[in-house]
Structure formats: C-alpha cells, structure tokens
C-alpha cells in the first residue's frame, strides 16, 4: 500500500491546501514540503527493494473495457525520477516560500504545484500506459495553470496557451500512440509492452505508433521544432521554471523515451527520428542560448539543448548511450534547477534578469555568485563537476558510433559544436552577470544576498553537482545502475564512472569544446556588441502566433459562412440533403424500373378535384406575396384535400381536414392582423432560380417515390384492424378504434402536442402587450360596425345547434365518422364564430374562459382512462366495453374508449380556444395601448 500512498500524497496535500484559507501561504508551503519530504521518505524506505531488483506493484481495475487499470510500479527508472521529483520538489517549495510576493495568492501556487507533483509522480509510477497518458495530460494542465499563474500579465496568458496547445496536443498524439501499442500488444501493462518489443516492431502499425509516441515525447521535452514554447513558459514564476521547465516536466518526454525504449527502440526509424531530432535540438538550443539577454531565456534555451542531448543519446540506440542519457537527466536536473533558482535570486534581489542591465554581481552577492558559477561550469561540462562526466560519455558515444554514411562525421562534429556553444553561453552567464565590470548600467534595486533559506536549496544542489562530479561511482553509481538497467530492460553494459579515461578522442573533443567555447564568447564579447544582437525573433513562437492568428481568422470565416444566420440557407441544405438522400440509391442502382403493373383508372371527378388542388397549390405559391390572397387560395387546397379524402374512402379524415383547415384560416387571419399584408419582392433572381430548382426536384422526387410505391402490391398489418375492430375493439369505425384503442398512445401524444402548443401560446401571448412602436399595416376599417347584426344573431342561433351536432359527432365516433377531435374542433369553431360576431370580451364574460383548465383536464382524463386498466392488471390503455341494458331504451353501449375520446374532446376544445382567444385578445390589448 505504500505505492498508492506515494502516488496519492500530493493529491491529499492538494486537498488540504485547497481547504486552507485564502492567503495561508505559510501553511500551504508547510503542507507541500511535508508532502515532498514524506514522499522522499517513502522512496528511501522502498529503496532496498528497488535496488535489489524487485519491482513493487499495486493495481486495481478501472475500465476493463479499455484495458485501463489504475496501477503503479516502481522500478529503478521510476525510483530515480520519483526521487528527482520529490527531492527537487522539496527544495523548490522551500525556495518558493521565500520567493513569492506577499500579494501573490500563495495557496493557489502551492495547490497547483502539488497537483503538478502528483501528475508527474503518476507518469513515472504508472503501471499502465493509458494511466501514464492520463497523468501526462494532467501535467500539461497543471503546467498551463502555473505558467498562467500571474494571469494579469498578457505574456503569461499567451505563454500558457502556447504551452498547453503544444504539450496538450502532443499528449493527444501520445494517446493515439499508446492506444496503437495497446492494439498491437493487447495490453497497456508496462511489463507486457516492454516484453513485446519484437511484436511491436514487426507490426505494420509500428511507424505510426512510433511517430505518435515521439510527437508526445518531443513536444513535452521541447524538441525542435516544438521547442519554442519552453522559453515562453519562463513567464511563470521562477520556482516553476526551475521545477517544471528544467527539472521535471520537460523530462517527462525523455522519461517516456527511456520507459518505452525496449518496446520501441532498436530500429532504424527510431535511430533516425530520435537522433536527428535530438541533434537539431541540441545545436539550435545551444546556439540560441548564447544570444539571449534574459537570464531565464538563456537557461531555457540551454535546457532545450540539454534535452536535445539526452534525446540524441537515446536515439543512438546503444546501451552505453542510454546509460549516459539517464545519467545526464540526473545531472541536468541538479545543475539547471540550481541555476534557475540562482537566476530567481538575482531577479528577486536586483529587480532584473536582463544581462544587458546586470553586471558585477560577484561583489554584492558573492555566495550566490559562487554557487551560480559552479553550476554554470557543470552546465558547460567542466571537469570535476557532474556535467563533465555525462558529457564525456556523450562524446565517447558520438565518436564511437559505427554507422556508415553521414552520421560518421555529422555526429562528432555536431557534438563538438554543441559543446562549444554550451561553453560559450555558460561563459556568458558567468561573465556578463557576475563580472563584466566595464558595463555601467544601473541595476534597479541595490543588490544584496538573499535570505539564507532562499539560498539553501541552491547550495544543496550545487553540493550534489560537486559530489557527483568528484566521486561519481560512489555517489551516483548505484542509482544510475539501477535506473539504467530498468531503462535498458537488459543487463548493463560495461562502463566506468571515472573522471579520467586517458588522452582519448572524447577528451580531445572536450578540450576543443572548452577552448572553442571560451574563444567564441570572448570573441563575440570583444568584437561585437553582444547586447544588441537579437536572435530568434522569427522563431517558432512567432510562427505559432502567426499560424494561430491566421488559423483563427480562417476558422471564423468558415464558421461565419456556414452559420450565416440565414434560415433560407439552412433549409436549402436540409431539403437538398433530403432530395439527395432519396435520389442516391436510385442513382447508384442506375434508375428505377418503370412500372408495368395495372393502375387504377382515373375517375373524372377526382381528376377535376386534383386539377383544382394542383392549380390552387400553384396559385398559393404564385400569389404568396399578397398574403390575404394566398390564404384564400390555400383554403381551396385544403378543401380539395378533404374532398379527395372523401372520394378515396376516408370520411373521418375529410372531416378533420375540413375543420382543421377552417381553424387554420382563422388563425392565419388573426396572425395577419399583426403582420405585414404583403411580402416585399425578392431581390435575387439567381437565388429564386435555385429555390425553384430545389422545389422542383423535391416535388418530382416525392411524386416519383409515391408513384413507385403506389403501384406495388402491399401486405399491410391493417387486415387485423378490420377483422378485429368490431369483435375486439367494440367499434365499427375502424379509424376511430385505431385512434382510441390500438394506437391510443399516439393519440395521447397527439393531444399532448395540441395542449402544449396551447400552453406555449398562452405563455407567449398571455401577458404580451405588443409594444406601441410596432406599426401594423392593416386595411382601413371602413365598416363602422364591428359586429354586424346579422352575424351576431346567426352566430348565437347556431351555437346550440352546433352543440347538438358536437354531441352527435362525439357519441358516434366509435362506430361512424366523428370522434373527440372532430367534435372538439366543431365546438371551438362555433365559439370562435361567436367571438367574431360578438367580440372576444363578450364571449369571455359568458364562458369564463379558463380554457387551459379544459386542456389539462382533458389530458388527465385521457391518461386516467388508460391507467384505469392497471386496476385489473391490464396494460395501460386497455379498453373494454359493455352494454348496459336499460329498460325501454335497450342496450346502451359503454366503452372505456369513449371516456378516452372525451379527454381528447376536452383537450381539443380547450387548446383551440386558448390559441384563438389568445390571439383574439391581442386586439383588446391593442385597443388599450393605442
């Protein structure tokens, strides 16, 4: 259980910190330090096991479907990295406690730092590659938060974005790569993957896998051409730079290379991709570092270069190179962290990090200067310091590489050149900041030594640099051995960690590098004005910004073109897609078989009715700009449709269509009160032509489709309805029995739609006072009398008669044309007629029009009727009927479906009345308002 505890510690700490009060910086720091130190302690407790070659493990299942287990393992490599993370973490916490300003939100800083620490530990401890990806992205996110910590600064926000885009994107690529590995291997377990190197390399997916994984690693480790985010990340507070952007997070990329080396290495693609990337990064980083003026900038480019070096070492695919790589990871972490902290101290105490401002600091802060100089020397690869040893190993590998072709000379040459650059920028760091007394710029603050505790972490790290540099085999030997063995996944090669290997070629290279570097810097210093040299202005950062800006503009343009806000355009697409969807199968099939089967002969009346319908539909389209006219002509279409229904044996439909048509016309007239009487003419003929073409295509398409279907024989389920409507449904009007019984559930939904429409209309118009500003064009009211006497009297006379017909239609519905909806519409129309004749106020006063209550009650009644069948353990809406024998009168049919139909009726009346009177009442409000 120590392993999950180790992984959980930072998160537990984060939880505690997040519960602390807002500015409890000290408590947050103590918590963080406790976390880091406890983690170190756990690592030391586990050390004997790890050094004995055991791999402690712990895991539980998380998403078996994905093969994602939540598990950790601690081998030598993980142990080394974990120690780095926790050890340097502890030092950084100490440093940050003094570095942060009193105004900075300290709690937030330590919270993010702990989250990062947890994510980083997760990466190195993960026993499952997918879990590794999880933590990998978590480091990107926490890094985003930390870079943007001073979020009032624009550069901080921008840098945070850039880092997130690059590393987060790389993480997604890594996810792809890992998923491919899982697909090849059949498992994401680290052991399984490491054991399956041959399978992976043999897979056709090997190269994509490798490329995706490398994308993840290279973006994280700031390899060329993704390196540019790292210098920008220096906008973060210096402790963050020291911790994330030199010692730990950027090492995640090389950790990944190390971790997956047995699985992905040992191949030509690996060699070329990794080596060349590393070499390019090494040279570019080192070269650009020389010309930085910001201390942190110099260190950042140096970091890039050193990461390139490590990557290069892994790329060489040689056991010794791997050992050197692991060793250099450690060395770089120590000296670079100490250098960043030193730079932070300088910044903190002088108010500047600009080498064009700083000079002669050895006088005011001699201890810091001494520490920084030693660390810089380690960075330059000066003997007796740790950097020298790993660099010598690198030179040896570069020189010893047995590759034919370009690499034989490119690699040694590149190595020496990089060495020269490294010495040059290290020299500049030392000279320009601590010496260079000739410079006479004014330093913002009077410099002095920092507090002891701020310097202590630097001292610890510098001591380590020295100790490792002087006695590598004793100090770092065992750790390196166990880590390198875990990395190689094979027995270690022979190597010796000694300072002196004799006058060999690598030594010669070192000498050239040291001398050449010194010459280069002092030559530049002497013969140029270094402080005016600007390099790397058109670098990746600018490219990124350019691409981002252009990309965003393009994306906006595309979106604006698509989301034009034009309903016409949207609808055209919909119709066009539907037409295409309908036509495509026919196109693919090469047309359709023209029917040969017999058709029903045309009957003359139907032909005439059809002609009227066609003409009226076309008329509606032609006259549509004159709206009243269009409504009139549309009325004829509705009439024709219902006559067609009559002729083609659908009396119920005819009734419904007729009544719905009448109600719709009334609605349209009511709405026209508030809308312009005419549509303005269209401006674009071309567009109209498109619309016409589309309309024609849609019309022809549907006509063909209907025709092709109509001439086919069919075998419908409907014979069942015909056969059972009377004996089982208790009604001879099969349509009605379907509506209230077989498919009563549809009807329930249908009346809900009607009811909800009414509710929505009531909600929308209920308390709408149409604003005065809206000028409604209406024909002038020339008629003096709003309510002609004739209309009044006829409407009043009709109402009782209509009521009678309503009851008639309602009661007969089950057996003959009629039913609840039809009856409801009839009564609603009569009431509307009355409202037209007498005015809506007149009717309201008499009807006490709470029509929504009718609607709700109707729906409830219909539902309750259906629920009633539960009482006798039958499904919802099971109907029954019986005959009640009444003396003299005879058998009175009692059908539960009739109750359901009554619900339909009530809903319909209520809903239609709500719709029509809500609209009608608008005129009242207008009278009040205007």
């Amino acid at each position, binding site marked *: 259980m120590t392993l999950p505890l180790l992984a959980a510690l930072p998160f537990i700490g984060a939880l505690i910190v997040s519960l602390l009060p807002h500015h409890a910086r000290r408590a947050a720091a103590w918590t963080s330090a406790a976390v880091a130190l406890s983690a170190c302690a756990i690592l030391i407790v586990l050390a004997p096991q790890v050094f004995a070659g055991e791999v402690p493990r712990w895991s539980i299942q998380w998403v078996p479907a994905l093969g994602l287990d939540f598990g950790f393992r601690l081998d030598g490599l993980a142990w080394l990295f974990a120690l780095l993370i926790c050890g340097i973490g502890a030092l950084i916490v100490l440093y940050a406690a003094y570095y942060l300003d009193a105004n900075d939100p300290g709690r937030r800083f330590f919270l993010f730092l702990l989250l990062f620490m947890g994510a980083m530990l997760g990466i190195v401890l993960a026993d499952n590659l997918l879990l590794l990806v999880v933590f990998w992205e978590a480091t990107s996110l926490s890094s985003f938060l930390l870079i943007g910590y001073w979020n009032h600064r624009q550069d901080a926000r921008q840098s945070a974005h850039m880092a997130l885009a690059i590393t987060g994107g790389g993480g997604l690529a890594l996810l792809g790569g890992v998923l491919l590995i899982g697909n090849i291997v059949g498992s994401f377990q680290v052991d399984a993957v490491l054991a399956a190197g041959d399978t992976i390399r043999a897979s056709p997916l090997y190269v994509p896998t490798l490329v995706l994984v490398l994308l993840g690693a290279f973006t994280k480790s700031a390899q060329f051409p993704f390196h540019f985010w790292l210098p920008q990340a220096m906008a973060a507070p210096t402790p963050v730079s020291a911790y994330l952007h030199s010692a730990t997070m950027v090492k995640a990329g090389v950790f990944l290379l190390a971790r997956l080396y047995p699985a992905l290495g040992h191949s030509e693609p690996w060699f070329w991709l990794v080596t060349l990337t590393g070499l390019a990064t090494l040279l570019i980083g080192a070269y650009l570092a020389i010309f930085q003026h910001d201390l942190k900038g110099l260190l950042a480019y140096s970091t890039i270069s050193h990461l390139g070096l490590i990557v290069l070492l892994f790329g060489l695919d040689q056991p010794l190179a791997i050992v050197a790589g692991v060793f250099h990871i450690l060395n770089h972490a120590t000296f670079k962290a100490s250098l960043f902290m030193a730079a932070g101290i300088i910044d903190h105490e002088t108010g500047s990090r600009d080498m064009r401002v700083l000079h002669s600091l050895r006088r005011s802060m001699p201890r810091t200067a001494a520490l920084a100089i030693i660390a810089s020397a380690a960075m330059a690869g000066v003997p007796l310091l740790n950097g020298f040893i790993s660099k010598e190993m690198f030179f040896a590998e570069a020189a010893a590489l047995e590759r034919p072709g370009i690499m034989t000379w490119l690699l040694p040459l590149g190595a020496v050149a990089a060495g020269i650059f490294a010495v040059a920028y290290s020299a500049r760091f030392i000279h320009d900041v601590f010496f260079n007394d000739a410079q006479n710029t004014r330093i913002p603050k009077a410099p002095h030594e920092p507090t002891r505790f701020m310097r202590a972490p630097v001292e610890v790290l510098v001591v380590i640099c020295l100790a490792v540099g002087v006695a590598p085999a004793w100090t770092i030997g065992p750790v390196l051995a166990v880590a390198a063995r875990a990395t190689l996944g094979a027995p270690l090669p022979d190597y010796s960690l000694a300072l002196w290997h004799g006058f060999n070629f690598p030594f010669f290279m070192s000498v050239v590098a040291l001398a050449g570097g010194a010459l280069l810097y002092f030559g530049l210093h002497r013969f140029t004005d270094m402080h005016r040299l600007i390099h790397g202005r058109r670098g990746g950062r600018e490219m990124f910004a350019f691409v981002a800006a252009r990309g965003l503009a393009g994306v906006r343009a595309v979106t604006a073109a698509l989301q034009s806000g034009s309903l016409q355009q949207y609808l055209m697409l919909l119709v066009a897609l539907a037409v295409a969807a309908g036509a495509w199968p026919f196109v693919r099939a090469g047309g359709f078989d023209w029917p040969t089967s017999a058709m029903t002969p045309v009957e003359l009346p139907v032909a005439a009715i059809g002609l009227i319908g066609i003409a009226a539909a076309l008329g509606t389209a032609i006259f549509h700009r004159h709206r009243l006219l269009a409504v009139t002509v549309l009325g004829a279409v509705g009439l024709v449709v219902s006559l067609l229904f009559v002729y083609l044996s659908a009396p119920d439909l005819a009734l419904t269509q007729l009544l719905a048509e009448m109600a719709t016309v009334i609605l349209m007239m009511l709405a026209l009160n508030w809308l312009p009487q005419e549509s303005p003419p269209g401006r674009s003929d071309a567009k109209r032509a498109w619309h016409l073409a589309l309309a024609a295509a849609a019309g022809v398409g549907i006509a063909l489709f209907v025709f092709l279907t109509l001439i086919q024989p069919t075998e419908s389920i409907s014979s069942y309805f015909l056969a059972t409507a009377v004996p089982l449904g208790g009604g001879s009007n099969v349509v009605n029995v379907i509506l209230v019984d077989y498919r009563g559930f549809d009807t329930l939904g249908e009346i809900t739609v009607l009811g909800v429409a009414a509710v929505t209309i009531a909600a929308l118009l209920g308390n709408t006072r149409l604003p005065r500003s809206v000028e409604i064009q209406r*024909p*002038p009211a*020339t*008629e003096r009398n709003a309510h*002609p006497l*004739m*209309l009044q009297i*006829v409407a009043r*006379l*009709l109402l009782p*008669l209509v009521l009678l017909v309503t009851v008639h239609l309602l009661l007969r519905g089950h057996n003959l044309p009629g039913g609840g909806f039809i009856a409801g519409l009839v009564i609603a129309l009569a009431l509307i007629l009355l409202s037209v004749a007498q005015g809506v106020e007149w009717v309201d006063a008499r009807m006490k029009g709470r029509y929504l209550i009718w609607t709700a009650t109707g729906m409830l009644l219909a539902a309750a009727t259906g629920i009633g069948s539960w009482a006798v353990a039958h499904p919802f809406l099971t109907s029954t009927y019986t005959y009640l024998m009444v003396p003299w009168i005879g058998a009175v049919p009692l059908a539960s479906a009739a109750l359901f139909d009554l619900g339909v009726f009530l809903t319909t009346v209520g809903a239609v009345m709500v719709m029509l009177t809500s609209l009608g009442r608008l005129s009242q409000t207008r009278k009040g308002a205007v």
Partner: protein
Amino acid sequence: MTTTFLLDLVSSALVIVGVFFTLVGSIGLVKLSDFMKRLHCPTKASTLGVGCVLIASMIDFSLAGETSLHELLISLFIFITAPVSAHLMVKAALRDDPNIPRP
C-alpha cells in the same frame, strides 16, 4: 310504372335540376363582369342547387330502405349561413365604395 320508378325518375330529375342551377351559378361567376353581379351567383347553388340534390338524396336513401332526414338539417344550416356569407362579402367589397348613397 311503380312508385319506385317514379321516385327514381323524380330524384333523377331533381339531381339534374340541382346540378343545373349549381352549374349556372358557377357560369355566372365566370361570365359576369363585376363583383356585385357575380355575388348573386352562389345563391343559385346554395338554394335550389343544393336543395334539389338534398331532396333527391332523401328520396334515394328512403328508397334504399333507410329513412334519411338529416338532409333537412343541411338545408337548414345553409339557409342560416348563406345569407350571412353574402352579407359579409358585400360589406367587404363595399368597404371603400363611396358611390352608395346613404339613406
């Protein structure tokens, strides 16, 4: 010459008469030159046209054995509503006709 045949004859005649007047109404609708003239046309259809057809229908269904009288209701409703339609249509057409003298 049974009653059935007579009734058949009568109902056929009624259909012919009804259809004739309905058709005349529509012909007038097309033929006449101004609205007020045309407005007189549908009254043909709505009175004698539909009326004769309805009576024919009553006879026809009675012949088939099912007494059918709701045609009367249809006539009743037409007689109630047709004048209102015409009345309102005149008013709609006259809305801006200043030529009618006020009484």
